């Protein structure tokens, strides 16, 4: 809506939106490494034969977790898997202080948030109280307390664990290379003027390219959709996009193929996600937003873990340099880590491990901005003004209008295009992150994940192949087509149906 008929957000609204989104991102990234990816690298056969350890595949090169109370690499990773469940909950709790609930928050509205950030309402609730809602001061204190636990976990466990996995599986720095073209819409406005913590743009290799949303095209050459005869085989910009399902179209996926034309890059295929965001921000050194590890005990900072000392102020460039250097030269400590790595080592970010690393670093950067701030600038949560305005009302215009919103979901660049007529939605098109990454062949090129699989080596035995393929696919953090379950309050399924090749429901079974 912002960009269609809503103008600017009040500062509190902007900051609280950033915080709600940031908590979701940090939660999503931690979940991704431990609960969605870790078992690609660990053989948990020493643990009881039950979920979440089963069902699983065992490849020949996995780290073996014995289940014994010994401090082996694999046993420690399993311990962190369990601890991460509590940490991701703390991310949700911290976000829900502002959004009412997480995920699927219900505070964000066009023009700001519905959050009441009052110094007196709802009264003098102390931090010891387990429930909420809390007044402004208590909310800020509780948020920092929760987020500091999360930050300590990221610094002392999440990032070191990624480095541990990288040390044991070094070949994955050169597997899953992919299209080597990145797209980030950028997000997290840190000033009213719109300066972004995550930068916007397209990248080819390590070189910036031109991005303009008007150059986005969605193709359906290999998808179960139909365009008009005149448009068949060509892409449509989302403003003129249509979603007409047709399983008989000769395609092989329900995912469309978004492509970016006119960027000056070698092809129109672009990968989105944490890697795109961190590389794009890395390539904008002069406009970077600094973050800091303020508020943490020294032992809980990544700077101390790496041998740099607590980082009172750091940029994404320094963070990426330190991590890439540490990954390739594990013995390095101190200021040497901040030197620019060899171009080849930076190039290894285009890999299965590079995607895990970028995700971990981004979780740290956003968590530090929310609760640590940087030197001279308060953390986001402390920039909020008690009793400040959180929302600006805008009237939906009667005239026909259209607009778009570009943002960053945890999985990558997210854009929605809307047209409003007679105060109602006349047209809506979403181009979501996994649509870019998991798109099928179009405009002459396979999608980013298809390209990352092609020319990778996955071994020659069936179980090795399965596990290695998962190790290449999982770093893209797929999030596609959620199912809708219709349940009654007792949790009983009430309706079951199938969507036919014509896109219409069939076999409707009302279960009562």
């Amino acid at each position, binding site marked *: *809506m912002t960009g*269609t008929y809503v103008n600017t957000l009040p500062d509190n609204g902007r900051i609280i939106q950033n915080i709600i989104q940031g908590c979701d991102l940090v939660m999503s990234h931690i979940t991704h490494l431990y*609960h*969605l*990816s870790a*078992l690609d690298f660990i053989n948990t056969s020493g643990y009881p034969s039950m979920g979440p350890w089963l*069902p699983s595949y065992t490849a020949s090169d996995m780290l073996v977790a014995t289940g014994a109370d010994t401090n082996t690499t694999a046993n420690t990773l399993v311990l962190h898997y369990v601890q991460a469940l509590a940490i991701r909950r703390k991310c949700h709790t911290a976000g829900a202080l502002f959004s009412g609930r997480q995920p*699927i928050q*219900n505070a*964000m*509205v*066009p023009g700001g948030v519905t959050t009441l950030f009052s110094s007196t309402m709802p009264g003098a609730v102390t931090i010891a109280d387990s429930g909420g809602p809390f007044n402004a001061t208590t909310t800020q204190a509780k948020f920092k307390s929760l987020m500091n636990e999360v930050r300590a976990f990221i610094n002392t466990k999440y990032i070191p664990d990624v480095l541990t996995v990288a040390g044991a599986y070094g070949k994955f720095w050169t597997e899953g290379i992919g299209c080597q073209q990145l797209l980030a819409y950028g997000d997290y406005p840190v000033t009213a003027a719109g300066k972004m913590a995550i930068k916007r743009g397209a990248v080819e290799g390590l070189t910036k390219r031109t991005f303009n949303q008007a150059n986005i095209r969605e193709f359906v050459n290999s998808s*179960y959709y139909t365009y008009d005869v005149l448009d068949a085989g060509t892409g449509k910009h989302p403003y003129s996009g249509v*979603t007409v*399902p047709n399983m008989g179209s000769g395609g*092989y*996926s*329900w*995912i469309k193929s978004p492509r970016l034309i006119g960027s000056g890059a070698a092809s129109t295929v672009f990968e989105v996600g944490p890697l795109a965001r961190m590389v794009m921000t890395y390539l904008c050194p002069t406009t970077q937003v600094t973050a800091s590890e303020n508020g943490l005990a020294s032992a809980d900072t990544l700077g101390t873990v790496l041998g740099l000392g607590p980082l009172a102020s750091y940029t994404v460039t320094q963070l990426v340099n330190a991590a890439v250097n540490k990954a390739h030269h594990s013995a390095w400590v101190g200021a040497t880590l901040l030197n620019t790595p060899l171009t080849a080592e930076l190039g290894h970010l285009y890999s299965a491990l590079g995607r895990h690393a970028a995700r971990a670093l981004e979780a740290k950067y956003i968590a530090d901005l929310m609760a640590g701030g940087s030197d001279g600038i308060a953390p986001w949560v402390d920039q909020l003004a008690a009793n400040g305005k959180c929302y600006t009302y805008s009237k*939906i215009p009667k005239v026909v209008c259209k607009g778009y919103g570009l943002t960053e979901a945890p999985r990558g660049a997210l854009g*929605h295009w*809307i047209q*409003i007529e007679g105060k*109602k*939605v*006349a047209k*809506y*098109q*979403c181009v979501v992150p*996994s649509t870019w990454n*998991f*798109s*099928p*062949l179009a405009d002459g090129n*396979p999608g980013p*994940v*298809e*390209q990352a*699989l*092609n*020319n*990778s*080596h*996955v*071994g*020659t035995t069936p179980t*090795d*192949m*399965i596990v*290695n*393929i*998962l190790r290449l*696919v*999982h770093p893209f953090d*797929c999030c*596609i*087509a*959620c*199912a809708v379950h219709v349940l009654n309050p007792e949790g009983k399924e009430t309706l079951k149906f199938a*969507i036919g090749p014509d896109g219409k429901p069939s076999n409707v079974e009302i279960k009562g």
Partner: protein
Amino acid sequence: MATITIDPVNRIEGHLKVEMTVNDLSGLVSGAKCTGNLFRGFEMIMNKRDPRDAPVIVQRI
């Protein structure tokens, strides 16, 4: 050459199939295809609704 199909890919959000050809001797992958197995349809759900419903509905994606 072996054709490998993983359907569904586990530990992801959603329903995904990947299919590819793998060289038996080198393990090298070619011809990879990604298939999203579910239709989404939020564009149709949004049609003719109050635009302020959008943030509530489409965040479910």
